[in-house]
């Protein structure tokens, strides 16, 4: 098998708090292949954004540490890279789109200024070449009347248009990996559908890998080829998308699916996973999902379960569900 584009191995991320170092992400490992689309799904506090921000090292250095792990890109460990090397990678090889396009765009610069920045920085384009390229990029993200829009300020655009501009900036240097952190969460549902379609089209056109982060399993189902499910800082399940939605193995994944209110069929009451997500430093013996799990047994409380490969590309962190039958 070819080397993966990006390889996250045993990543642990801790943040400094008043009470010492708090573990937000623990022993996360997964690879992203060239051109692959991966969905990273989980609720608030699952560690999905912390994992993604670690790839570009966007956490404040003074309060973040990585007690274990590596993130390998193009033969280099990004966790050990210096700021200069990281700057060369950010926006050129790996780019990112965030949830809220208004706070990610500079309100006092025109769209042109902002799209041209990576082009001039990474590709050394002259300002007229960069401007021409910015207009092409706006066309590429399906903004009509690009030659006029390029000189507007962000406040003149709708939320959907701003997110298109963010995507144009992110793909300006033809990155090999695009990280999209809840790119449609702040948008209306019809605009969300448009942006997801745009991301699918761009991935096909540009051949880039996409890591899509979302709390919404539906969004993940519509976009990703492979899904990584996180809970309380750990991966609990990782599988190809059809496998995950057809035969989820982890009780948390099942619970998430059952919690999505249905548009067809369904009973009178909604299902919700009982209890709540634990705080990062809450001491829980064994499986961190145990206190909320309907299938919990003694083995779950005895030790934290390992992430076990159950069927080639399908990994599950659940002791009872991955037990090898003794017959």
């Amino acid at each position, binding site marked *: 098998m070819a080397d993966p584009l990006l390889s996250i191995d045993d990543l642990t991320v801790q943040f400094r708090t008043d009470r010492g170092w708090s573990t937000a992400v623990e022993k996360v490992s997964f690879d992203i292949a060239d051109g692959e689309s991966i969905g990273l799904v989980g609720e608030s506090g699952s560690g999905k954004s912390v994992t993604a921000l670690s790839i570009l090292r966007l956490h404040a250095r003074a309060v973040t540490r990585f007690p274990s792990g590596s993130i390998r890109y193009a033969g280099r460990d990004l966790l050990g890279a210096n700021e200069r090397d990281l700057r060369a990678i950010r926006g050129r090889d790996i780019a990112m789109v965030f949830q809220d396009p208004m706070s990610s765009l500079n309100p006092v610069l025109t769209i042109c200024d902002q799209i041209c920045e990576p082009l001039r920085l990474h590709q050394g384009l002259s300002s007229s070449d960069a401007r021409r390229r910015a207009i092409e990029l706006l066309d590429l993200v399906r903004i009509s009347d690009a030659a006029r829009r390029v000189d507007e300020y962000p406040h003149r655009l709708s939320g959907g248009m701003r997110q298109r501009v963010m995507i144009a900036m992110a793909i300006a240097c033809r990155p090999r990996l695009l990280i999209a952190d809840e790119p449609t969460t702040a948008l209306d549902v019809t605009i969300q559908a448009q942006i997801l379609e745009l991301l699918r089209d761009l991935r096909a056109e540009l051949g880039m890998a996409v890591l899509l982060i979302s709390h919404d399993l539906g969004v993940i*189902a519509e976009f990703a080829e492979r899904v990584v499910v996180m809970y309380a800082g750990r991966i609990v399940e990782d599988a190809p998308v059809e496998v995950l939605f057809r035969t989820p193995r982890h009780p948390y994944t099942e619970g998430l699916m059952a919690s999505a209110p249905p548009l067809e069929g369904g009973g009178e009451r909604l299902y919700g996973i009982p209890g709540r997500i634990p705080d990062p430093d809450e001491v829980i013996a064994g499986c961190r999902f145990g206190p909320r799990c309907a299938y919990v047994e003694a083995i779950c409380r005895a030790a934290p379960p390992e992430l076990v490969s159950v069927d080639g590309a399908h990994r599950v962190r659940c002791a009872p569900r991955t037990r090898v039958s003794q017959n």
Partner: protein
Amino acid sequence: MSAAALVEVRNVDMAFDVGRHKGKPARLQVLRDLSLDIAPSETLGLVGESGSGKSTAARVVVGLHEPTAGTVKLFGRLITGPERNLNLATVRSRTQFVFQDPQAALNPRMRVGDSVAEPIDVAGSHTRSDRNARVQELLTMVGLPRDAADRFPHEFSGGQRQRVVIARALALEPAFIVCDEPVSALDVSMQAQIVNLLMDLQARFGIGYLFIAHDLAVVRAIAHRVGVIYSGAIVEIARKDALYAEPAHPYTRALLDAVPRLDPARKRTKPIAGEVPSLFAPPPGCRFHARCPHVMPRCQIEEPALREVAPGRLAACHLYETT
């Protein structure tokens, strides 16, 4: 509807003067000809995208805005216009509001028990021990632990904070509660708990809800009837089962199609193009025509009226007008 209606909104227009737009004094027509009814123990879902006017509608219904035209009746009495015969103090003691963000709705420096007791304190006439007993009763009602009263909002999760807000809303035994996106800020595993709680409280106390959301799936779980609002006007209103099984208006259809499903093999329909039109420059004819897959020449000139397209079901679309 009969005299028993909790809420009767008739032909309400709501416009705001918003200073100047492109050099001219601007007036935004946010709601147009809005009519709706809500009965006791009934939930009317109101679904729309940002800027559709759904939150403005909610505020008009409980008398937070005086509409520019039309009337609002609560409990059979007018709360708008010169013939108003229900004063706002009464409205406020019998209607309540639950907002999207419980963090913002609770004073971070007030103990949860004091927040819940605030409506009781304002209404007066309670002894200290009655008040505290009532707070305990309310907290139990929404499924919070007994010691919650002495704690501060930051000690609770988002879902629990929304329970606190609901407990406070219940304090004066309201007949009608407006829920404006009450679960949008919550994780999916928490949403169900809050929606189920609201349904239980309705079954127990016969409260009527106006439940506002952008999420069609959540509305389907709680509402009896659903109205879909687009660019300030209701484009379809029907019983829930009919609306979801067979949406009449092309916009309702598009909204339903756009909801992502948990099925990677689902055949995706092409999303509708375009965006909600600006209220500063609304298009002529049907407000949806530029995005509509069934657009006809007539749609670009004449705005369709909301009319009955099947028993109990209204839609504003020229497709349903026999020529």
